[in-house]
């Protein structure tokens, strides 16, 4: 190595040490992108806190339980709204691909704030309180969610293919948008099918 090579080596070494020494100040102006994807989780577990033994064959007057959970991985605290809705086979589901929630009104709702990386979970207990047979359809008249009684009129048509009166209890996830000062459907929903034939 001649002297020029040594000088270049010296300059590069000095530059590295200058950058290291300046790193506290550089950290004030240089921001690194947050690694990973920003998303929210929404899940529904059975009564044993596992993804099994979900209620399916239900009867009026019987109480059933589930666990509903939300995880925040958005990179900041979030204000969530979960709407519980009740539908028969012909009523609309949310459309996650076009960000459209179901047009049905909610029978119960949960509002909560969640720090980044935290999860929220709550038990959900529901019961069909009143149902009547009208011709070849069964009309659910009232349900109770977490001890809150609600009047609903949900006619269930006999499904001859699967031999039952089917309806769905589903939960939509909404997220508060500070820029628009309103909740927006967050493109996520979970639900279970229930059969009220028994």
């Amino acid at each position, binding site marked *: 190595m001649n*002297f020029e090579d*040594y*000088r270049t080596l*010296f300059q590069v*070494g*000095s530059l590295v*040490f*200058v950058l*290291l*020494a*300046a*790193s*506290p*100040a*550089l*950290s*004030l102006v240089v921001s690194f992108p947050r690694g990973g994807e920003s998303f929210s989780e929404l899940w529904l577990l059975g009564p044993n806190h596992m993804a099994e033994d979900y209620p399916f064959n239900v009867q009026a007057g019987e109480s059933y339980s589930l666990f509903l959970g939300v995880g925040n991985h958005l990179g*900041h*605290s979030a*204000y969530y709204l979960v709407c519980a809705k009740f539908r028969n086979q012909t009523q609309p589901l949310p459309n996650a691909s076009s960000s459209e929630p179901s047009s049905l*009104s*909610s029978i*119960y*709702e*949960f*509002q*909560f*704030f*969640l*720090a980044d990386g935290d999860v929220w979970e709550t038990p959900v207990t529901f019961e069909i309180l009143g149902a009547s047979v009208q011709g070849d359809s069964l009309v659910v008249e009232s349900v109770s969610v977490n001890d*809150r009684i*609600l*009047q609903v009129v949900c006619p269930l048509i006999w499904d001859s293919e699967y031999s039952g009166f089917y309806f769905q209890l589903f939960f939509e996830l909404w997220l*508060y948008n*500070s820029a628009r*000062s309103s909740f927006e459907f967050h493109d996520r929903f979970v639900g279970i099918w229930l059969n009220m034939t028994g």
Partner: protein
Amino acid sequence: MARAYEAVLDAERFGADISGLLVRLNDAAVLLSEARMAFDVEDFEEATRFAESASEVGYKVVDEAELLEIEANNAQVHRSWWFLVTSALGVSVVLVASLLGYEYFKRRYYRRLSKMRPRVGVS
């Protein structure tokens, strides 16, 4: 509630510890959910009562979040100054050490070079 949440988000952006505020906001959120559900079943008296309680908590959270934001902002300014001063000192030390080291190395290099004897090759 929305204002309270935005105040908490601002405090969080400045690096404030907002965990306590989120607990209070969640208490208010439960009240607000109750208010909305009472409103849906046209129980306006209950809806008003729950909404007022939620609003009360919300206003307190706004005040606390603003205080936390100011504290976090002051801490951030202090931290920024500390970073600038330590960086300036560090860079100065590295530059002075580099210049002195370079001069020392240059002298040693040329001293060693001058002590070398020329070799005469015989073909």
